[in-house]
């Protein structure tokens, strides 16, 4: 199977949160409890072990190009999701093999294998994966592996009324995203940009299978501008450790030699 993923076009998101509810319904995830955040219409605030799609509402006192408002102001929506990175920190950190790469190139967590160690939680540069307090295991978006197996698109993409969440083969999504970006730039929306579409855009994750079109800097959406999968640093870290060890040995030998000369 060729890689499949999401292209989430925030420029047509209307903030209806249908994806969030459809995801919870299909995957039978519990509600996280009622908490009034006071942060725009966003009361779930972030992705969680029981919230695999999350719609962020972001209000900034900033005029974006292509918008006409009475005063400098932008209200941005972003339907956030697991990015299914090509170089996935969670997958590389998993000691049990519970996290696997599926035939659709998505990163799938097998709950029956997961032992709840939590290494993946700290290895994700986006803070997507988390453990459920009630059963201890880690949970995250499966890219609706069960639906994909029978030829259906994921629940969030299926329900999205504006096709802000577009599901398909990643190569087709890239073409679509480029076309959309060009169209927006032509219409004067100069801040529009693609987030994590290719390895060039985002070397720290080697590109995302669920990438985004943003209307502002990634920071405005609470997305890391330059995420790096921690295991990418492993080689350098081991190298530095080797250097440090060599240095220690050299210092010890030097100290013994210097002591011997006295």
């Amino acid at each position, binding site marked *: 199977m060729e890689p499949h993923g999401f292209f989430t076009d925030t420029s047509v998101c209307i*903030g*209806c*949160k*249908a994806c*969030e*509810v459809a995801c*919870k*319904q299909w995957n039978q995830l*519990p*509600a*996280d*409890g*009622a*908490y*009034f*955040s*006071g942060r*725009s*219409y966003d*009361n*779930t605030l972030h992705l969680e072990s029981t919230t695999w799609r999350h719609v962020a509402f972001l*209000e900034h*006192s900033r005029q974006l190009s292509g918008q006409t408002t*009475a*005063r400098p*102001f932008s*209200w941005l929506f972003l339907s956030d999701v697991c990015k299914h990175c090509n170089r996935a920190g969670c997958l590389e950190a998993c000691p049990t093999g519970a996290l696997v790469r599926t035939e659709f190139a998505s990163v799938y967590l097998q709950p029956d294998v997961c032992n709840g160690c939590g290494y993946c939680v700290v290895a994700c540069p986006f803070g997507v994966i988390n453990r459920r307090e009630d059963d201890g295991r880690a949970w995250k978006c499966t890219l609706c592996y069960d639906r994909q197996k029978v030829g259906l698109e994921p629940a969030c993409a299926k329900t999205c009324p504006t096709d802000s969440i577009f599901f398909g083969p990643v190569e087709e999504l890239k073409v679509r995203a480029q076309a959309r970006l060009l169209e927006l730039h032509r219409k004067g929306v100069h801040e529009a940009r693609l987030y994590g579409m290719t390895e060039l855009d985002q070397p720290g994750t080697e590109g995302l299978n669920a990438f985004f079109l943003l209307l502002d800097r990634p920071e405005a959406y609470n997305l890391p501008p330059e995420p790096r999968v921690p295991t990418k640093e492993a080689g350098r870290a081991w190298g530095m450790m080797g250097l440090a060890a060599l240095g220690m040995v050299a210092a010890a030998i030097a100290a013994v030699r210097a002591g011997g000369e006295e």
Partner: protein
Amino acid sequence: MKNPLYGQQCNPARLEWIRRDNPYHKAWGDPRYPFIATTYRVTEHHTAGGMSRWLPWLNELQPEMFVEVSPELAGLRGLENGGWATVSTIRGEIEARVLVTERLHPLVVQGQVLHQVGIPYHWSYVGRSTGDAANELTAFVADPNVSIEESKAFSVQVVAGRRASRRRAAAVGPLAEPEPGQEQGGEPSRDLPQVQAKKPAPHGERSGRQQQTEEA
């Protein structure tokens, strides 16, 4: 604030239910109710929320009744984002969480600053997520054709903090004293007072249209 383009301020064909337990405050320029309010839906709930408030997946998305105010109005009335506010009209008062947002901002009309209050109307006393109902505030004024209640534009008072009790004009009488001079033939709460002077119809309703048919 008066309509500068036209002398008649209120729809002369409107339906009103003038009873002791259903008071009206002034439709414009009432100093007791200085802020303009409007009601609207949020996407998470359906109609008044009677069905959708039972669903935890929706309740976590909009967990509590809230009112939206501008930072300017919040500063003016000492409202805190995420805190409580009590919104009142002469008919009733409700408490709600405060959502301070720049999406609302004061309007300047004829040199006068008008603050807006946004009120979603999806909460009431049943369901898994309960809260005060926006319809406690709205005036019983209906359009002449199909008697749809006017609930999109009215004026309110906002104070910080929770309400002490659920005061309702229907139970305790009008929630504010009459304006000085208003009862002694001063400026009426709505114009076209001759409509109000007519005898009530069987259901206690009066309208300019009825009056016209009676005169004809």
